[in-house]
């Protein structure tokens, strides 16, 4: 790559790719060529910037101008005005939601200001398909230093000192995990990367793999050196085609440069890496099921102990680390464990990446220092709940996690605080809910997921999740009793204590935490046969306000089951027995006279 005065970075993450970013890149090339600027400005594919809600994203350096919602038709204007004449196209710049201020640079946005990007340090900055760019941002330096200047034990000590804990959700100290595997006898040991990201709404790992695959490869080689392994596997779900492709390109480049293979940096250390594709079973994100799947068997968990560090993949000592955990490793070794430990809280060091979704203005990917409060994430970084609605709860940890109610919005986000209030860190899905979400319905949604994804090996999970869902079905259809609530709770504790793996042990969490914080909603469903949020269809009634009804007959004409009757110019009435709650009448009514109750 020659020197170019301007770099046009186009997001190639999955979100932006699905909103036409490849076409935008092509158009940039065409427009630059048309004006003879192809040598002066380079178009560069990059990973996720985080503000997925505003995609496709284009950032132009050296100004760092941050363009959002870019369309193919806008490209000519950006080239003509910005690249040729040096005038930033204000129209396409990011507008701050609160102040409506126009923001020129990415780092000045409210969304970025409170973030601290460690695991995502290269996402949206480098071209993930070019190993030289990774090297320019200090890539493979940590591996070189480890192999030539440090003993395996020293590497483990640095990771331990940093206080890094597993980012997959459970939060086990990474250095400790490595030291367990290191003290086992070789010669054959394995390093595995868990990239089987399965929580609904979570896409942190995907973004790291798409935006900075080399950081994971480098970290795995370092892990191999630390524990004495010479073979690694990345287990990634086949539903992430872009991540798989970039990972394969990165592995091939690393092999070509000799950062993977025999005698890396002329030392005695050799390390090879292969990708294994998961076929989409949620349970394969559980470590023992993941290893069973790599071995070529059906992905089912097995009891622990023995732990993988003792007897893991193919019966050999194995470490499994999550993608985000690994992405932190080269940074820690380059910058020192103290610098990492400076961030975060006493027991939770560093940063955590969250995929922000649901009822929030800035849907996307954020990385925050541990200990940041939920309020800061929702209100400052996330830009608040849209449409003037009120924040009701946040769901962390997907189907294994729980809800944080509005009353606990000032809870600092770290492993201990979240566990204390009955939720969990989880892998990083953070779903925001407003007053229109029914908490019973949310619990049932997650149980639906675990019922589908339970592998069926152990009875508590296979049968227990189904029974839980049956009770919830009863409640949302208005047929539940108060005894059902007690039964629900009791069954939850049975599942927690008797299931074989984490899938079953954590499956009741969404139910337990909603029962804990939103018991009034459950009781409203049972006692009053009412859904306060107006979600559960069976409990809804459509009624016409006789004050507002003008008797125009529009509703009775559109009703497919003839449930609405009344004379012209007189208030109409809905027969709730006949009504199928299709909502057609509400859409037709011009006087806002029909309400859901």
């Amino acid at each position, binding site marked *: *790559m*020659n*020197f*170019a*005065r*301007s*770099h046009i*970075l186009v997001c190639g993450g999955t979100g932006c790719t699905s909103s036409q970013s490849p076409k935008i890149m092509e158009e940039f090339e065409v427009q630059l060529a048309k004006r003879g600027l192809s*040598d*002066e400005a380079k178009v560069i594919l990059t990973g996720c910037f985080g503000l997925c809600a505003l995609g496709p994203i284009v950032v132009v*350096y*050296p*100004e760092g101008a941050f363009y959002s919602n870019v369309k193919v038709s806008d490209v000519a204007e950006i080239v003509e005005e910005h690249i*040729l*004449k*040096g*005038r930033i196209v204000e129209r396409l710049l990011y507008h701050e939601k609160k102040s409506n201020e126009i923001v020129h640079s990415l*780092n000045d946005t409210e969304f970025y200001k409170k973030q601290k990007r460690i695991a995502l340090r290269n996402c949206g*900055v*480098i071209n993930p398909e070019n190993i*030289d*760019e990774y*090297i*320019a*941002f*200090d890539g*493979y*330096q940590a591996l*070189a230093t480890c192999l*030539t200047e440090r003993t395996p034990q020293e590497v483990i000590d640095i990771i331990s000192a940093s206080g890094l804990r597993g980012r997959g959700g459970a939060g086990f100290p990474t250095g400790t995990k490595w030291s367990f595997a290191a003290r086992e006898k070789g010669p054959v040991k394995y390093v595995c990367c868990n990239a089987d990201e399965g929580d609904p709404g979570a896409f942190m790992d995907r973004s790291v793999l798409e935006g900075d695959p080399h950081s994971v490869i480098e970290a795995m080689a370092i892990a191999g050196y630390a524990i004495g392994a010479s073979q690694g596997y990345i287990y990634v779900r086949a539903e992430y085609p872009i991540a798989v492709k970039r990972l394969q390109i990165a592995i091939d480049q690393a092999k070509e*440069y*000799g*950062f993977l*293979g025999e*005698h890396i*940096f*002329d030392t005695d250390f050799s390390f090879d890496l292969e990708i294994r594709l998961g076929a989409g079973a949620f349970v394969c994100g559980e470590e023992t099921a993941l290893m069973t799947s790599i071995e070529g068997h059906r992905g089912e968990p097995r009891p622990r102990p023995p732990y993988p560090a003792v007897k893991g993949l193919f019966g050999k000592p194995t470490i499994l680390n999550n993608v985000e955990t690994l992405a932190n490793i080269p940074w820690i070794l380059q910058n020192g464990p103290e610098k990492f430990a400076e961030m975060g809280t006493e027991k939770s060091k560093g940063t955590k990446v969250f995929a922000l979704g649901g009822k929030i203005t800035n849907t996307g990917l954020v990385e925050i220092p541990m200990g940041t409060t939920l309020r800061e994430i929702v209100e400052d970084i996330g830009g608040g709940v849209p449409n003037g609605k009120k924040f009701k709860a946040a769901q962390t940890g997907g189907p294994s996690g729980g809800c944080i109610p509005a009353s606990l919005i000032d809870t600092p986000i770290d492993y201990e605080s979240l566990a204390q209030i009955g939720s969990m860190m989880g892998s990083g899905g953070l779903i925001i809910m407003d007053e229109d979400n029914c908490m019973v319905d949310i619990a049932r949604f997650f149980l639906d997921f675990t019922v589908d994804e339970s592998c069926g090996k152990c009875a508590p999970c296979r049968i227990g999740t189904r029974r839980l869902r049956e009770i919830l079905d009863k409640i949302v259809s208005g047929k539940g009793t108060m005894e059902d609530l007690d039964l629900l709770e009791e069954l939850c504790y049975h599942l927690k204590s008797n299931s074989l793996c984490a899938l079953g042990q954590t499956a009741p969490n969404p139910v337990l935490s909603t029962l804990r914080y939103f018991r009034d909603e459950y009781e409203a469903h049972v006692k009053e046969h009412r859904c306060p949020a107006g979600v559960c269809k069976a409990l809804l009634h459509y009624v016409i306000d006789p004050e507002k009804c003008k008797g125009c007959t529009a509703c009775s004409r559109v009703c497919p089951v003839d449930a609405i009757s009344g004379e012209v110019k007189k208030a109409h009435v809905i027969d709730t027995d006949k009504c199928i709650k299709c909502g057609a009448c509400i859409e037709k009514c011009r006087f806002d006279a029909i309400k859901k109750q």
Partner: protein
Amino acid sequence: MKSIAELKEIREQMQSRINMRKEEDEGIRVVVGMATCGIAAGARPVLATFVDEIGRRNLQDVTVSQTGCIGVCRLEPIVEIYEPGKEKVTYVKMDPEKAARVVSEHLVNHRVVEEYTIGAAE
């Protein structure tokens, strides 16, 4: 297979290519006036010369960008050079030959080419 020395070499070579994307951008900024007046007076070949020369010499920590009309259109093409901790230098009535000399004297050897500056022209 790459040795550590080669890794270092790639890193250094790449530095000048990606520097503009680093957060702590403390390098030299070359800003060329590229409004209608600047372009009409010949700013494009001046800009191109800066880009070529900087690339050829593999200079670190230098970015080239454009700006709008500085206000003294009669002195275009105007080039301003910002160095951290130093006063901004404004060169006027530039052409490609002058640009090449500014690169070698100012950007490489940190000697201001007095005769091209706005003070000398006025």
